[in-house]
């Protein structure tokens, strides 16, 4: 890892972040999602924006999100994604999971070396 500040985004993590974004902001197009993740992560996460679409494809396959064509703020045609009921369920489930895991990992990493 050449730049320790910029982590590569784990595949599944990106899926989770997109779900959360759609949950928080309502329907968004891919560009909007990318901007949002960029802002939130304060540029820590290095993201090829195209990767967002791979995640979106996966989420669509699971029917956790739905897609519809619409018009963006500056009048460009764009596809808008929104979270579905089963997506909400999945989000709750995964958030809990994530919290639990990161708690455990955090605790382990904070352990003082015992001699």
């Amino acid at each position: 890892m050449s730049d320790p500040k910029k982590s590569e985004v784990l595949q599944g993590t990106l899926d989770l972040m997109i779900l959360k974004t759609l949950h928080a902001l309502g329907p968004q197009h891919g560009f909007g999602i990318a901007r949002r993740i960029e802002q939130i992560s304060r540029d820590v996460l290095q993201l090829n924006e195209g990767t967002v679409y791979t995640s979106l494809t996966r989420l669509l396959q699971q029917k956790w999100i739905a897609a519809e064509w619409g018009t963006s703020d500056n009048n460009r045609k764009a596809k808008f994604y929104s979270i579905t009921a089963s997506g909400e369920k999945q989000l709750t489930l995964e958030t809990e999971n994530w919290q639990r895991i990161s708690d455990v990992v955090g605790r382990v990493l904070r352990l003082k070396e015992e001699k």
Partner: protein
Amino acid sequence: MPYTWKSQLRAFADRLAGLFRSSKHDDFDEEVQSHFQMLVDHFVAQGMSLQDAAAAARRQFGNTTLLRENRKELRSLVSIEDFARDFRYALRSLGRSRAFAAVAIATLALGIGASTAIFSVIDNVLLEPFPYKDAKRMVFPRIHDVSRGEEGDRQGYTSNEFLEFAAQNQVFDGLTGALEDLVLYKHGDGVDLLYGADVTPGTFEFFGMPALHGRVLQSADYEPGAPPVFVLRYKTWIERFNGDKGLLNKTFLFNGTARTLVGIMPPRFGWYDADVFIPQKPVASAATVGLPVQWFLLGRLRPGISKTQAAADLTVIANHLANISPRDYPAHFQMSLNPLGDTVVGHFESTLYTILAAVALLLLIGCANVANLMLARATSREQEFALRAALGAGSARLVRLLLVESLVLAIGGAALGLFVAWGGLKLIVAAMPQNFIPAESVIELNAPVLIFSLIVAILTAMLFGLAPALQAARRDLNHPIRESGKGLVGGRRSGRMRDTFVVIEVAVSLTLLIGAGLLMRSFVALREVRLGIQADHVFQTQLVLPDGRYKTSAQVSGFFEPLLTRVKALPGVVDAAESSSLPPDGAVDSTMEISGKARDGEWHTLLQQVSEGYFRVLAIPLQQGRTFTQAEVSAARKVAVVNEKFVSTYFRGADPVGQRVKLSVLETFGDPVRDPWFDIIGVVPDIANQGLQGMVSPEVWVPYTVTGSGAQALLVRTQQTPMSLMNEVRRAVSATDPDVPLAFPIALEERIGQRLYAGPRFAFVLMAIFGCLGLILVTIGVYSVLAYATTRKTHEIGIRMALGADRANVLRLVVKTGLRLVTAGIAIGLLASLLLGRVVQSELSRGVKPYDPTTLAVTTILLIATGALACWIPARRATRVDPMVALRYE
């Protein structure tokens, strides 16, 4: 975010849908374009020039081609292009190692071909033998006596019963009856016997087959006063009448009636195995006079009606009939229904399935062999795989590549296998016992069979391809680099897998050999079974007497007495006798009583009517008392000879001579015997009377002169080959009555062979062939694994020899490695055979146990010897290694 199996399934469903999705309707590019534009707008808003903004957007967005590929891969199964590429690659790579491909394809062809051939037999004989409309729903009813086994079942019905079942049942959408009708066909050159069937109205509509030439029987043919007609079977038309179309509408003299030939059936119409079909309407009669008419019934179940439901419905009707004539029904009975196929195939079914199992084992051995070859090949391709992996091929990609290679091999094997199957099928059909398969079935390679072999090919590809493929995909990238030195260890993991395959192969092969060995023992045992008669040098024929002139016992003995005198006088004839049935079958079943003995339940015995020479002709010794004298036979005295089984069953070994027995069935004969009490005058040993394999039943012999009824047969003991006397016997018969033909003349020994050994011989010959093929494959398998391992070990052997190991040492080392595998395989194989013994048990004749020690020992030794040979050749080669060369070997 982890994806569970459920979500994997959802994704898979979407991928599957991708097969039907047109890529043209995908708006992905549009979406990407829109995103890209927004990015450019975004950067321009930050103050970049349009050109810089576009470059920045491209950088930020990433590689669109890769994205599109990813998306495609996510949303589709293996793409056609990928598959085509893998396929081309597999062909190229197999083309480079032709020897490997040839051995693999030949091995698979053998396995797939053999199983295809056997499956076509099963498909055509067991699964789809009948060309009739809805043949699967055709069943024949039997009256099953609850207190007895299946041999007590009745499947012949009177006209009354037929009419009652036809009118009352709620379960058939068609019911037809057939009645054996021996036809004496008189023509210019004499008399011939045709096997005829009287068929009820609607029979041909029931089967739904039109005639090939002319027409089938119509309802008008059954009207009173209609001109007598008949329909001819194809096979008989070809064999007896040379396929002459001019015979249509010609008149034939059948049993004294002039009948017109109105139709010839297509080749596959073989109902009742009859030569000619004659219309006859069953007519209700108030009282049964004489022998009851015995219709064989065949019904077609209504769709949705199960056999159990139908049997229950028929039982109700039969109970009603039993109330009217209780004498014709057992005390406790129920109706049972058997599928049409049971009329012929019977025991042969399990034989065929046993052989199919054997073929599957052979295929398994073949797969193990090819898997081993692939493993060995994979080891030598490690560098190639490492390079591919290093260049970015995922393990799934490598597995797919290798599986496509396997598939190419399997399909090659299947293609070649079809030729093997085609040739094999010709041999099998030639070897197949004809009496055991339905006359209607035609054995050929057809569409279901081809689909079967295609499926087998794909399954085998999975079977032998998966292990090597997973093996190849699992290795880490450093491994081959370490391995490239051809070190001493030599690919532990793949080595172990190869060893496992050899062990499996040896085990399966032993199971196969033991099966073949047991069947051989069983076949030999069959030939040694004591029939209780001396079957060689006996000529036999049935004599069908024209009904009209032979009704009473006086008329019948008026034919046989002079005939027997004539035949006995022929040069080369030792003795001759008349009998109502031919060994090893024991005539009719009769209920009976013994005077002064209380019965518990019904007593049964077989009954046979014979002339005084019968016991001499078949060389049946006398145990006690005496047999009939010529005077007793001529005078139709009511005396009886019984077998040992009869004595042990009903007299518990006490002396039966002088006791009296009542044979009730004689009262019901066409020429009935009043008050049929017989004095027992002698006892003979047990003689096979329920077929060769059946247990001997109690049997009684009485003089044939007591009644004019019963099928008649002539037995002649000869000095020379029995068949050489046929023409002279024919002349003697003709001199006695020119209207009597010889029916089914044959040497007794030949008939026994045909009827009783043919099935077991077929099973044993096929099993022996498969066993040998299995053995050859195993030898190749053990040899190739050892040869490969030895080559890999050349370096090690060189060091050992340089350090002073002598040749014997090295030989022992290599042979020991190999024999360890063979021994392990044998242990497993023996265990499996003991467990599987029950399966083959039903195929074995009495006296041969599935754990027959001789068979186990012989096959084990055979396999060890073969294994040792396979070990010895590479071992010999190893001892010839020059230490110096081996050490430099690199």
